[in-house]
């Protein structure tokens, strides 16, 4: 029996039609979206950690302000060293919230894309100065 290439290709072109008509596309779409949401739920603890980092940054800012008023003898560079690593771990939108809470004169939060690296020298100085009191 001789089978031609075009016979094989023609038959292959029709394979699976019935099954494709039978699948419930709405059910598939809903299932995919629900599973993607569930995956987001698994990742939520990581976000919670980031919010804790925000809280820590704010607490640090408040603490640094308090300490700078109380003890003038503390060197100015020490607070920067403590604060910068925490801020550097925040996502851009999280950092924006911290900045908004500090009521900076220079509007910076809407310019953030990648975090601290988006701040120019003046904005960074003001941020650190505000945190240091």
């Amino acid at each position, binding site marked *: 029996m001789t089978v031609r290439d075009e016979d094989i290709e023609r038959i292959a072109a029709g394979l699976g039609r019935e*099954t494709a008509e039978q699948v419930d596309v709405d059910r598939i779409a809903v299932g995919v979206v629900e*599973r993607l949401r569930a995956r987001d739920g698994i990742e939520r603890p990581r976000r919670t950690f980031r919010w804790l980092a925000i809280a820590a940054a704010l607490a640090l800012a408040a603490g640094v302000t308090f300490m700078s008023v109380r003890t003038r003898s503390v060197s100015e560079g020490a607070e920067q060293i403590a604060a910068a690593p925490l801020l550097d771990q925040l996502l851009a939108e999280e950092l924006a919230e911290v900045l908004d809470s500090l009521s900076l004169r220079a509007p910076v939060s809407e310019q953030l894309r990648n975090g601290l690296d988006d701040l120019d020298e003046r904005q960074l100085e003001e941020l650190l100065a505000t945190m240091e009191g």
Partner: protein
Amino acid sequence: MTVPERDGALSDAELIARWRVGDEAAASALVHRHARAVARFLAAAGAGEETEDLVQEAFFRAFRKIDTFRGDANFRAWVMRIGSNALKDLRRKHGRWQVLALDERDVPDERFDPHGEAISRDLEQRLAVEIGRLPEMQRDVFLLRAQQGLDYAAIAAALDTSVGAARVHYHHAVKRLKQVLE
């Protein structure tokens, strides 16, 4: 290749861009647009009664790793490749290396014969089974070309291979199918 369905005139690229920023409606629209084609591909690859679950799995995996999708590639073919990997994982998981034969209803009847030539039901059944027995790369290339109508460049991009390699795989697939059917 892309058939808008429910989602107006948005292209795949636009919907993908929306999904990248978390738009679930965009993900759903992409599923509606491509699910039946992916189902045809997986059914022909031997997915059998697991086809619907595998389609869901393919899209789920695709959206999870959407950042690895090359913008110039064919989204539908990319999802098909992911579905093919999911089928392989399923067979490995269940230790089912035997081919899942297509349901009889999935074998095209003579109405699809443009030449009016009567191909026996037996030949069609055997072809359906033998496609499922091809090496994965040969099977995927063969189906993407013969069933989905993609050109070799699109196939090569979807399967992360070269155009030349895709042509070779297709040639080997057809040769092998002819040998076992004759």
